[in-house]
């Protein structure tokens, strides 16, 4: 798939998500295979996430020092952390549809609830660390339903990612560098209809 085609499809899926309600991806995906749907969803997620991280958090906190980002953003009147923004979006989607779910996980999670919980998650997260830029696809049965599961590497796109993760008191790994895969986005689509 060319970069242009991928971007166009991502724009269609993203637009449908924004304007047409969250059941739209499945409708647009009719005829597409799970991998393509998942790739497009991830493209939207990763783009939004990178924009927020670079243009909001990294710029305002690390470069201009205007405001800090904090996991206790309410108490400290701070910016929401990029990982929290991603999770809040995922939870909002989950309240609207069960056509797909997504999460941001890591083999080195600061928040332990973001550690892998299934064997396939562990395998996929390790794969994207070992093979930067390559997604991982698989199938797994959870709660009686078979899911298509895709894992995409989540690299450190800005200095803010590295400095926060390396310095956090709960981090299990403190030698991340810019560009390192720090975790992965896991997307699941139920395959049982």
């Amino acid at each position, binding site marked *: 798939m060319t970069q242009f085609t991928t971007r166009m499809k991502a724009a269609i899926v993203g637009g449908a998500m924004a304007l047409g309600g969250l059941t739209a991806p499945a409708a647009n995906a009719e005829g597409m295979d799970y991998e393509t749907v998942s790739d497009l969803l991830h493209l939207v997620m990763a783009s939004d996430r990178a924009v927020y991280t670079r243009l909001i958090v990294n710029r305002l906190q690390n470069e201009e020092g205007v405001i800090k980002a904090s*996991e*206790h953003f*309410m*108490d400290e009147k701070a910016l929401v952390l990029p990982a929290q923004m991603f999770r809040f979006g*995922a*939870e909002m989607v*989950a*309240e609207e549809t*069960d056509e797909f*779910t997504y*999460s941001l996980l890591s083999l080195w*999670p600061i928040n*332990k*609830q973001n*550690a892998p*919980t*299934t064997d396939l*998650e562990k395998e996929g997260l390790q794969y994207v660390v070992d093979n930067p830029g390559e997604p991982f696809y698989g199938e797994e049965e*959870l*709660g009686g*339903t078979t*899911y298509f599961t895709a894992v995409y590497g989540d690299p450190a796109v800005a200095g803010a990612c590295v400095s926060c993760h390396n310095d956090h*008191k*709960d*981090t*299990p790994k*403190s030698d991340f560098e810019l560009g390192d895969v720090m975790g992965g986005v*896991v997307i*699941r689509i*139920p395959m049982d209809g």
Partner: protein
Amino acid sequence: MTRNRLLWILWITLTLFLAGAGLARLYIAGDRTVLTPGQTDGVHHQLEIACETCHTSSAFASQSKIRKDINKTCTTCHKDELKEADDSHPTKKFTNPRMAAYWDKVDARFCTTCHSEHEPEITQAGLVTLPGDYCVACHSEGEQDVRVNRPSHEGLTFDTCASSGCHNYHDNRALYEDFLVKHAGEPALFPDPVHPVAAIARTRARPSVDEVSVYLASLEVPAAYALDDPMQHWAASAHAAADVTCATCHAPKSETADEVEANWTQAPGEAVCATCHKGEAKTFALGRHGMGRHPEIAKPRDAKKTLKALGMKKPPEALVTAIETYLSDDPAPEAVMSTDRARVSLRPEALGKDLTCATCHAPHEQDLDFAAVGACLTCHNDDHSLAYEDSPHFKLWQDETAGLLPPGSGVTCATCHMPQTERKGVVTTNHNQNDTLFPNEKMIRPTCLNCHGLAFSIDALADPALVANNFSGQPNRHIEGIDWAVNRVNQPDEGANQ
């Protein structure tokens, strides 16, 4: 016909009749009190008779649909409360299929997993119906094992997580680790303690007797209603200061003297109060005093509609009439709570009172002392209430009302149980007096921390004897949460940066 056959027919007829009558009451109309499977808990008893408040599924819905529907109704009423609490375990956190392994342990996708109604024999405080060590299900293994990075937690039993004053399942706003560290080392009592929002509310210049007389002389009041005492009281109140006149409440929307005379209502209802005091009215309907007014309580069933819902497209009028005649109307929960129906310890002489705005607020006076203390103590008869007038908090209130301490220094029943908030200069009193009552750590941020340090607040609230004597003395318990949190941050080898 043999005698046996006759008896069989009689037995079958009676059985069908009784079953039909029961099912008709259950699914169509009529009082279902006798069919209630078990007493409901807490405030739910006030709306217990309106079954459809929680049971919204159709009669033939599947078990899984019924469970989903019931759980939706929990958040219909408790959504704002959980959002305000920054819920540590929102159900949405567990719906992702990656949490499937946990569904078999404690299925946290559903409120009813932990809060099962109609089971008084296993119901604990907070309507919890799981054994007290429920945290063990998820936090004793793998990445979620709380003991892995916290040596301080080794040897602790899981029945103490939520019962010791350290953690709550939903609301940990005053208990999360970074908050504990931030507030470590605070004194038990801050210098010159004052509740800042209460100070705003209580700082109001009171008019002199002469000013009241001049003001009253300038008003037009129908002669028949120009009573001296109420008007004197009212003229000195905040209502008068805000130009809320006699007609504003007694004859709303009346502009001329004739209209006031014609529309005069001697005893205006709560709706008149709620016209201006929207926040107070809304929160009043969320607490035990005013729950009967909650907008989400189901209305009584309509026989015709329930028959249609059961699949009868055009129910015969004769059938509807017969049902309405023989099953009687669906009873509705009483909109006004009465002390007779209370399930807490009340003074015998308080029985028979209805709880409306005027129960605690004298209509013309703005008697803070009665609304904030006297009204509560008129009814409540538990140890904590009875000990209040001997407590240091009450002494502060006496000193404030005597002018010896600045506004906001006194601690009344309302200070703690009906905390005030300020937004854009407007002070609102939370009239849901249960909002911060359980677990009592919910009270720490809106109330305690204005005057006391976090460690003292946690210790005090975790000491049942101190709570019972209304905080007359020092805590006899020490909760080590802050010590452990500080130790963990200061000594990375103990857990942080592992």
